[in-house]
């Protein structure tokens, strides 16, 4: 049979390979993927993991590395992969099991803590550990081993994870728990997403009878008062302090110590309303300066007229004051913000904190949110976990390259001198030498790294795309 030119023969048609859907997407279409700090922003191919079985098939034909990412709420580049493939998990968000007697919740890891709260609070349960935003995924919470206001009592988020599944790029699936594959369990908690993809995890929720928090705000002047308040609050579930880093002289290290416990008086456990406010636009880069932040800090310090105030407060404003305004990072303008968070062990905690606060005050750079907390000594199962017993301070600065980068580099070096370390989830600047000094166990960790996965952070502090790590799996 002769076919006219141009008409495909039936044979050709039958062997027409199905074209991958991605091929219709051109390189130029990709908007850069931003972390919450909006710095750095790298373009990457974005794919979605909708189902537990989508990985590792999703990285077939991917040559420049891949990284699972959730809400992208970490500040620096642990959730970025320049020119690689990001696997966004946010549609893999199913609840798989819940035992109302024990509070054990099993869910796919793209679920956000906000979704977990919507489910759990009406059933009389709460997150055992929560960070300052509920818009992070379960997977991200494990991968960064996040901590909260109750670190001194409950430890990190990883302490609450009873088990999870880990999928490697070679297709191997492992059940990880303190007793099953304990080495991979330890490496994956705080493993920055580098040990594999976690399709689901189980956490232990804690019972509550009310949405309300018995809140107390106490003004303090100076580091000694802060330390006294911290040591007196050992029995209180949640403690955190806001500190005025713009103040100098007699007001140096003034702040408000905030503490709270879940109310034990039963009240209706309604789900939270959805936030309605969105930060409308980017402010210009000069909006947050020493004057405006200094004025804000003075107002905030004197907002409470008395030295000590008590109140019954809903958990939303207590834990998530900034979540009420979506996209609040626009406040920092187009260039974004840098976070800086250290943990310095007790041995040098006081002198280190004082020295760093002096350095910040001297620099003239204004940090809008400065959070001070005493970490407890509950050990995390995570090999690369950030918290350690001592003091932690978190600062954030709008990016002004010539000034803030120099300050950051000084602060990182000071942290190292005081035996402390920085938090990868909030970092965009630490050097390779610093990281390796902060986390000397990194070489052991690298043995558990999946060879197909990497991040811009890892490449920055260890170097070489896919160069280091992987036990040949």
């Amino acid at each position, binding site marked *: 049979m002769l076919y006219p030119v141009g008409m*495909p023969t039936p044979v050709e*048609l*039958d062997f*027409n390979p*199905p*074209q991958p*859907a*991605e091929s*219709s*997407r051109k390189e130029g*279409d990709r*908007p850069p993927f931003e972390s919450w700090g909006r710095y750095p922003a790298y373009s990457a191919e974005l794919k*979605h993991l*909708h*189902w*537990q*079985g989508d990985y590792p098939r999703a990285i077939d034909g991917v040559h420049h590395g891949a990284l699972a990412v959730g809400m992208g709420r970490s500040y620096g580049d642990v959730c970025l992969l320049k020119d690689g493939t990001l696997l966004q998990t946010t*549609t893999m968000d*199913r*609840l*798989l*099991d*819940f035992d*109302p*007697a024990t509070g054990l919740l099993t869910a*796919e890891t793209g679920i956000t803590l906000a979704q977990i709260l919507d*489910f759990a609070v*009406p*059933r*009389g349960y709460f997150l055992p550990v929560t960070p300052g935003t509920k818009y992070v995924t379960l997977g991200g919470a494990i991968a960064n081993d996040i901590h909260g206001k109750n670190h001194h009592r409950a430890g990190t988020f990883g302490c609450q994870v009873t088990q999870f599944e880990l999928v490697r790029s070679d297709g191997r699936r492992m059940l990880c728990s303190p007793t099953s594959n304990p080495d991979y369990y330890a490496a994956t908690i705080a493993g920055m997403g580098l040990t594999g993809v976690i399709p689901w995890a189980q956490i232990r929720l804690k*019972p509550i*009878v009310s949405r309300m928090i018995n809140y107390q705000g106490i003004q303090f002047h100076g580091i000694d008062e802060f330390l006294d308040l911290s040591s007196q609050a050992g029995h209180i579930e949640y403690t955190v302090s806001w500190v005025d880093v713009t103040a100098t002289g007699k007001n140096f290290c003034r702040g408000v110590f905030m503490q709270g416990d879940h109310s034990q008086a*039963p009240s*209706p*456990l309604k789900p939270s309303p959805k936030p309605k406010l969105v930060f409308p636009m980017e402010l210009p880069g000069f909006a947050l300066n020493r004057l405006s932040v200094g004025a804000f800090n003075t107002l905030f310090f004197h907002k409470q007229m008395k030295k000590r105030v008590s109140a019954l407060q809903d958990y939303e404003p207590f834990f998530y004051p900034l979540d009420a305004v979506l996209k609040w990072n626009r406040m920092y303008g187009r260039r974004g913000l840098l976070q800086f968070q250290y943990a310095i062990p007790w041995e040098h905690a006081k002198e280190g904190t004082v020295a760093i606060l002096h350095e910040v005050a001297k620099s003239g750079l204004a940090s809008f949110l400065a959070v001070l907390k005493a970490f407890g000594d509950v050990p995390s199962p995570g090999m690369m976990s950030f918290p350690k017993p001592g003091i932690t301070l978190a600062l954030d600065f709008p990016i002004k390259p010539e000034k803030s980068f120099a300050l950051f580099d000084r602060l990182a070096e000071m942290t190292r001198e005081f035996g402390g370390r920085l938090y990868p989830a909030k970092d965009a600047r630490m050097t390779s030498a610093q990281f390796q000094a902060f986390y000397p166990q990194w070489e052991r960790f690298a043995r558990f790294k999946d060879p197909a996965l990497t991040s811009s952070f890892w490449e920055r502090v260890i170097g070489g795309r896919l160069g280091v790590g992987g036990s040949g799996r």
Partner: protein
Amino acid sequence: MNPDAQNPSKTSADAASDSVSKPAAGAEDQVAVVSRADPPQHDPERPLALRSVREQVEVPRRTARKILVLGATSGIAEACIRQWAQRGDALYLVARNPDRLAAVTADARTRGASSVGSAVADLDDTTTHPELLAHAINWLGGLDVALLAVGVLGEQSQAERSFSAAHQILHTNFLAPVSLLTWLANYAAPRHAGTLAVLSSVAGERGRRSNYVYGSSKAGLTAFVDGLRNRIDREGVRVMTIKPGPVKTAMTEAMKGREKFADVEAVATTLVKTIDMGKDVVYVPGIWRIIMAVIRAIPERVFKKLNL
């Protein structure tokens, strides 16, 4: 030609395998949440106050509806299932991929569906339909709502070149639903009750160069569902034609301009509400009623020069 003969890998007639061993026992007018609520006795290990709070929450407010979802792992269907489960309805879920179906089933059960049954079936295989539907309806103990969400987007460029690719799209999106709807309509009509909600698409309103094969399958489906409504609405059966615009789901993942697509959760909220109301034709989001009116009004001699 029998389309099934082309595809030897189809699931066999006994594909309707239950993943749930126990059907809802004699389920007429069964009250929501009964099956999973805590027993009312005092458990000495937990404080009493806590228990009373939890019971407040799980007080059933309404009778569980018996809902059959065909194509339960499709993005829009799954978002509806979550909301139905949350309010304690009884669900029977059918989908092709067993792992995905298991995840959606677990999610529905965890969120509080009064009972969840499921069956793995390839609905392209029309010969299995009668048995599958009979099984599902028996399991639910009746049928209040059937949501049809089977469909594929297909690859237009392939369908242009090859009839077998076009045939596959038309079969999945049009012929298989016709089979399902014929059986469901003939079950519901003599009982004068039930709602048949069918996911069609705005793409069926006008043939466009960029996806006319998918569009024609949905155009056929829309006409069929509209006609079916005109036949059995007077019998007391609600038949709904649902026309979503582009929605952020797995199906549309590779499409351009996806950032602007509708949010699947909002779409599901609208659908759950309008299915309760028993509307005839629903555009989601509602703006698409206006957009499509404009697109339909463009004269063909102009339209054929456009790149829509």
